[in-house]
């Protein structure tokens, strides 16, 4: 499928898009059911997600824990704000490094696009300077903000 795209929006936003060859209902499930998330939301080869909490309803908790073969790991926590299956999710998330990063508010939409789905993720960073700093250092790549926390132990 298409490569993801990433661009600035407004003063503090970042928008990521990607297309998938499946209808919104399937893409939504893959983003909200732990057993499915644990199969794909793993980043580089060699990582697993041994624990996944994804309580996809308003106020529901998110907790993803990643590990690699040598035992390095990190985790993400968050809370759902809105969940409108299969088209829209709003949540906040933060990575733990172990110190938590500033909350990132993420609005994800899944829209039918022919026989597939267009995913649009809008991320709201805390302020303009943070967004620009992240872009300047290459860190604003949306989910990569998450992966950037991935591990200082990447190589250990």
């Amino acid at each position, binding site marked *: 499928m298409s490569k993801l795209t990433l661009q600035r929006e407004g003063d503090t936003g970042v928008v990521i898009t990607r297309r*998938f060859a499946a209808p919104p*209902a399937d893409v939504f499930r893959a983003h909200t059911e732990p057993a499915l998330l644990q199969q794909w939301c793993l980043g580089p080869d060699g990582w697993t997600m041994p624990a996944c909490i994804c309580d996809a309803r308003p106020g529901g908790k998110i907790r993803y824990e990643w590990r690699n073969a040598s035992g390095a790991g990190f985790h993400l926590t968050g809370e759902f704000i809105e969940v409108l299956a*299969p088209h829209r999710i709003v949540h906040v998330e933060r990575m733990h490094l172990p110190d938590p990063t500033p909350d990132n508010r993420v609005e994800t939409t899944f829209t039918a696009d022919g026989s597939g789905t267009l995913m649009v993720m809008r991320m709201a960073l805390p302020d303009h300077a943070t967004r*620009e*700093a992240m872009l300047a250092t290459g860190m604003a790549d949306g989910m990569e903000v998450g992966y950037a926390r991935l591990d200082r132990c990447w190589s250990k």
Partner: protein
Amino acid sequence: MHESPRLDATLAALVDPTRRAILARLAKGETTINELAAPFPISQPAISRHIRVLEQAGLIQRRVDGTRRPCRLTPGALDELDSYLAMLRKGMERSYERLDQLLARMPPGKDKP
């Protein structure tokens, strides 16, 4: 993969939003601590502590210019981070490739919850 203490220091320095904002300001050019501190609602000693962390991580440098000690970004300091992030970007794309494969295996879905 290799050990990378410098990358560790870089990431530790970047985890703080005030320090990222300082770097964003310095990306526009050299400036003094006074000028750097102006937009932030925190004390100048607090800014000086952030500057010290960034300096120790090798991300910024200070030089003497008469009575001024302006700061600037260290040229090339973020190169290692850039290559690390390129690797992470591949990681994100790898996740979505896995999702493509997972979606291809799922039974046909209905577009209703």
